[in-house]
Structure formats: C-alpha cells, structure tokens
C-alpha cells in the first residue's frame, strides 16, 4: 500500500519536473520569438525609410532636372506617390494582407472606396460642367 503511494508521489514529482522543463523550453522559445520579432520590426522601419527615400527622390529629381512632356511627369509623380503610400502603410503602419489584420485592411479599403466615389465624382461632374459651360476654368 505504502509502496504504491510513494510510486504515485514519484510520478507526481516527475510530472512536475517535466512541467518545469516545458515551461523553461516555452520561455526559451518566447525569447527567440521576441528576438526574431524585434529584428523584423527594425528591418520593417529600415526598409520603409529606404523605399520612401527612393520614391521621394525619383519624382523630385524628374520634376526638377529631366525635361519631359508634362503628361509623362504627371504619370511618374502619380505612380511614385501611390507606391509610396502603400510602402508607408506596409512598413510604418504595419498593415498587411495577413489574416490577423483583416478587419482594419477592410476599413482602409472601404475608406478608399468612399474617397474614390466622392472625390472622383466631384472631379467628373465639375470638369464636365467646366467643359460645357466655363472653358476658362479648365486648367
């Protein structure tokens, strides 16, 4: 009877030991994860700064030093701006397509839809009016 009890106790202490072991392992994993996350976060801001610098210098350089027809200027400036906005959202605000951050991505995309409708509609209607009635207002 007594032997049986001590056996049970042994198993218990053994269980506790393994528990402690797994906890320690878990902590080790957490530290590793944290270090990896930290490296990833720092790299994110570094990439953001580098890409933004390139995407700022291109349009300024083109506008200041490269003689091109203005339509080509506008296309380059517009494209750099759109890409830089995406870079800022991705690397500075950490919005991505990963499953964890879906709801805010939807919020942002919905806002973009609203802006497209409101701003696009405004431009469409007013420039149509200018074209038909006030040719002097069309830039």
């Amino acid at each position, binding site marked *: 009877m007594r032997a049986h009890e001590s056996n049970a106790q042994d198993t218990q202490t053994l269980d506790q030991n393994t528990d402690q072991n797994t906890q320690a392992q878990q902590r080790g994993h957490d530290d590793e*994860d*944290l270090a990896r*996350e*930290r490296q*990833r*976060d*720092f790299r994110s*801001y570094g990439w*953001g*700064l580098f890409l*933004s*610098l390139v995407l*700022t210098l291109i*349009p*300024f350089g083109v*506008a*200041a030093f490269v003689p091109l027809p*203005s339509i080509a*200027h*506008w296309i380059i*400036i*517009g494209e*750099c*701006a759109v890409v*830089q*906005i995406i870079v*800022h*959202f991705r690397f*500075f*605000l*950490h*919005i*991505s397509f*990963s*499953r*964890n*951050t879906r*709801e*805010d*991505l939807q*919020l*942002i995309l*919905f*806002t973009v839809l*609203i*802006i497209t409708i*409101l*701003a*696009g509609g*405004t*431009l469409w209607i*007013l*420039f149509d009016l*200018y074209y038909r009635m006030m040719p*002097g*207002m*069309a*830039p």
Partner: protein
Amino acid sequence: MTTHTAGASTRHPGLNLGEPHEEAHSANEELVFGFWVFMMSDFIIFGLLFATYVTMLGGTAGGPGPSDLLEMKGAFIETMLLLASSFTFGMASLSLKYHQGTAKLIGWLVVTLLLGLGFLAHELKDFHTMISEGGYPSRSGYLSAFFSLVPLHGLHVAGACLWMLAIFGQMAVHRIDTQVKTGLTRLAILWHFLDIVWIVIFSLVYLGGLT
C-alpha cells in the same frame, strides 16, 4: 504581425506592444481600432479637399497661380523633415515595445518633435513668402482651396506636436504607465498618417503644380 506564433498576440492593426506590456496591449485592442476609424474619417476630409483643390486649379481670377507661388526647394526640405520624423517615431515605438530604456525612448521622441517643429517652421516661412507675393487666401478660388488644404495638414502636425508635449507631461508625473503606452501607440498612427497625407500634398500640389 506575428504570423507564426499565436494569433492572440496581434490584437489590433499596426505595431502591437505584445505580451510583455499585457495591460496596455489589451487596452489598445479597442482604443487603436477606434483611432483608426477616426483616422479614416480624417482621410475622407483630406480626400475631398484634394478634389476641391484640383477643381479650383483654373480659378486663379487673374492672380498668381501654382507656378508663380510654389517653390520646389521648400517642399523638398519639408518632405525630408517629415519622412525622417516618421522613421524616428518608429524607432521610439520600438524602444517602447522592447524596453530599451526611458532615455532612448525620450531621445527618439524629442528628435521626432524637433523634426516636426522644423517642418512647421519651414511651412510657415513658405506661407509668409506666398502671402507677401500676393498669394493670400482671399485673392482667388485657387488660393482659398490651397489655404484650406495645406495649412489644415500643418494644423494636424501642430496638434500632434502638442499631443506629444502632453505625453511628455504624463511621463514626468506617472512614469511610463499604461496610459502613456496607449497614447504613444495612437500618436504613432497619427504621425505616420500625416506623412501619408503629405505625400499626396507634395505630389499633387507642389510637383503637379510646378511641372
């Protein structure tokens, strides 16, 4: 952000402070999402002011237009200041997240604040030059649209600087507690967001107007 670890560690959009900051981390879940909703409503205001600006481009009423008033050098300096401040705020957020010490956190925040104030000083100087050259808001529809768009962004930057000063005050009294942590998380979103609005301003208003 952490895709391979437990999903529970990502509780809201953007940089999560993570489990070591448990209280602030869980408080942020609601606060940050609410702040994003506000940020997006602000985005719509700016979107419509951009549309107004473009429709008013032809309405100079014989007064000075974009190519007479705007300067590329000033816009470039302001762009660089704001971009640098976005990066330094990112460094401040990471010093907070990874417990790199109060001195480092405050140092990065002070650099960010100075860059923000430098941006404002340059912008005010630009406005002053414009106004002295006859480009004041009531001169034409174009100038009214310009002065409702660009200074509104400047006002946002000034507000963000004031908010940072308020957080410095909170830090001095309460040290870095949960309130300070959640405040800094939201201010970071505002700061990065204002840099995004500035991208559209320098592309559309300055570079678009000067080519």
